[in-house]
């Protein structure tokens, strides 16, 4: 079984580029150039220097002692939350902004859910002196207000998406429409392993630095580069793609993808695509999609803006269908419980998205001698209002 993308842009039967003709020239330009540009020595030199000195890589692989005691196993946290801007998203935006510059583009657009990708995009645009427009669902603008403020501070224009459920899916629609309207000078930095080929593959490659580092770090700490489990949350699935990437062809490493169950997978208020979705087309990709019988896209729900998406990247659809990854789903309440647990056991406040991965620890059934790597994809600063409300900590 092959888990990386094939020459036509497919992962098994998922992937491809289902886009209106107006986007074809831009996507084709990227498809023909991305691998060549990424392999150029001066590109790699610039990218590696930025990842090291600007982003702060490598991020630590931290043995979480008290959390390990609680679950009676060995848990390592890959500290993507310690990246500049507070999440793994910047690994990709640094890479793509360099790609945009190589392609001669002057104007950058992006979609964002939790705002982490928006902030990471606004950050690299400030760094490179490029115009930046970020589309964000109206609902997400409200629930992730600190990130909206950061984007504005960085000089980006934040445009509310007001259609549909006013969340990540709708922000992505608006970004795609912007790209149709501005085909000459604009580069679209997609934040996840979604969209038309070559985006899922390119974003996975930029995020693969996560598992590349984990391998070396785990080898140093335990003598083996392979854990028994790698656990990551999946909305579109970029942090999971990065955490899984160098383990895809190592079947003894079990890959656990954790989706947002929202209020419960059967509640009608959920974003657990692997359970609720079936094959369809969203944002230019053939993948698993939550939809009605008539093929209309269903409005998803999760407390976590970054996981509130009705599809999943085509790589993950393939990992699910082939059985290479095990999919779990975690409710809002379970995720919140995991936030409090990590905060009080380890002194780390995780993002709501990452908390879904942490909450799966209790469902894996790892043995005392086994090793788990959890990708702690982001920090919880952006979620503090939600946490204070939910944990009733106001005024205490």
């Amino acid at each position, binding site marked *: 079984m092959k888990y990386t993308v094939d020459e036509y842009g497919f992962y098994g039967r998922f992937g*491809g*580029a*289902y*886009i*209106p*003709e*107006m986007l*074809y*020239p*831009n996507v084709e330009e990227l498809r023909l150039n991305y691998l060549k540009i990424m392999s150029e020595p001066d590109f790699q030199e610039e990218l590696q220097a930025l990842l090291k000195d600007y982003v702060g890589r490598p991020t630590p692989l931290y043995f979480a002692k008290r959390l390990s005691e609680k679950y009676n196993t060995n848990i390592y946290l890959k500290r993507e939350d310690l990246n500049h801007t507070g999440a793994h998203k910047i690994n990709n935006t640094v890479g793509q902004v360099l790609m945009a510059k190589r392609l001669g583009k002057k104007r950058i657009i992006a979609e964002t859910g939790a705002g982490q990708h928006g902030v990471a995009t606004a950050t690299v645009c400030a760094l490179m002196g490029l115009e930046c427009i970020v589309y964000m669902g109206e609902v997400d603008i409200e629930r992730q207000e600190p990130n909206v403020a950061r984007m504005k501070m960085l000089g980006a224009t934040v445009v509310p998406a007001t*259609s*549909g459920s006013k969340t990540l*899916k709708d922000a992505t*629609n608006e970004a*795609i*429409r912007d790209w*149709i*309207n*501005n*085909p*000459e000078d604009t580069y679209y930095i997609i934040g996840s392993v979604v969209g038309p080929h070559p985006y899922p593959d390119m974003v996975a490659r930029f995020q693969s630095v996560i598992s590349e580092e984990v391998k070396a770090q785990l080898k140093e700490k335990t003598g083996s580069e392979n854990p028994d489990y790698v656990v990551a949350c999946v909305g579109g699935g970029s942090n999971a793609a990065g955490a899984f990437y160098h383990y895809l062809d190592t079947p003894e490493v079990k890959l656990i993808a954790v989706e947002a169950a929202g209020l419960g997978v059967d509640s009608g208020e959920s974003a657990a695509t692997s359970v609720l979705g079936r094959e*369809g*087309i*969203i*944002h*230019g990709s053939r993948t698993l*999609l939550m*939809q009605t*019988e*008539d*093929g*209309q*896209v269903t409005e998803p729900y999760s407390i976590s803006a970054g996981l509130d998406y009705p599809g999943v990247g085509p790589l993950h659809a393939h990992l699910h269908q082939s059985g290479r990854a095990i999919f779990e789903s975690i409710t809002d309440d379970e995720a919140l419980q995991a936030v409090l647990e990590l905060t009080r056991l380890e002194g780390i406040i995780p993002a709501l998205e990452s908390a879904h991965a942490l909450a799966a620890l209790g469902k894996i059934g790892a043995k005392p001698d086994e090793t788990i790597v959890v990708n702690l994809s982001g920090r919880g600063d952006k979620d503090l209002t939600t946490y204070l409300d939910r944990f009733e900590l106001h005024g205490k």
Partner: protein
Amino acid sequence: MENRIKTLFKRKPQGLLSVYFTAGYPNIEDTVPIILELEKNGVDLIEIGMPFSDPLADGPTIQQSSTIALRNGMTIPKLFEQLKAIRKYTQIPLVLMGYLNPVMQYGVERFCQEASEIGIDGIILPDLPLSDYVREYKSLFEQHNLSKIFLISPQTTEQRIREIDSHTNGFIYMVSSASVTGGTNGNAVANTDYFQRVAGMQLQNPGIIGFGIHNRETFTQACNHASGAIIGSAFIKALVREGSLQHNIKSFIQSIKQEA
């Protein structure tokens, strides 16, 4: 029987007016009345929009009409039921336009077969890639005598336009400028270099210009550069003006066709 789109272009190679509307908007049962009224007022070709929840290539007007049409209960089975007897009443060329996912869920083969039985002449699915069409569906569409209409834009290369031209029959949908549907800012038909470049290519298929065509002026300009033009968003806006559907359609089409 020859495809009605082909017959139309033979009979009237210039100045064609094509109108797009969203099925199920403003009311669920308006589909057939709108078609008949458009024909009565001298429209040459009709594009029936199949509403989709996430219309990527469409601006706010068609997004909104689609949302309302879906809320009204429009689906592919419902639309086919409404159109079942349409050929008893009119021989105007009919094209179905929508996004791939609902058609894929319905089943492309079943969709083509039933569309053909109704007497549909062409299909536009902007997000079905040419490569997928050629590989998987072309023979199916041809077998059912359905024209598969493709879009081109000012950024489409000559080589790509020729490839599209070789795989399609009916007409080529020339997107006027870099834009989603419904743009009225600036002049949609200002890009004369592009129109002349395409005209100079001597393609086997005629071209019709769409996106941003919204009044008599832009319609006439578009007709100077191609076989005709398509009006969508402006018509959808006109449908919900004060007055009856019949009145609104008549006065809108007259405003496009008659000398000012």
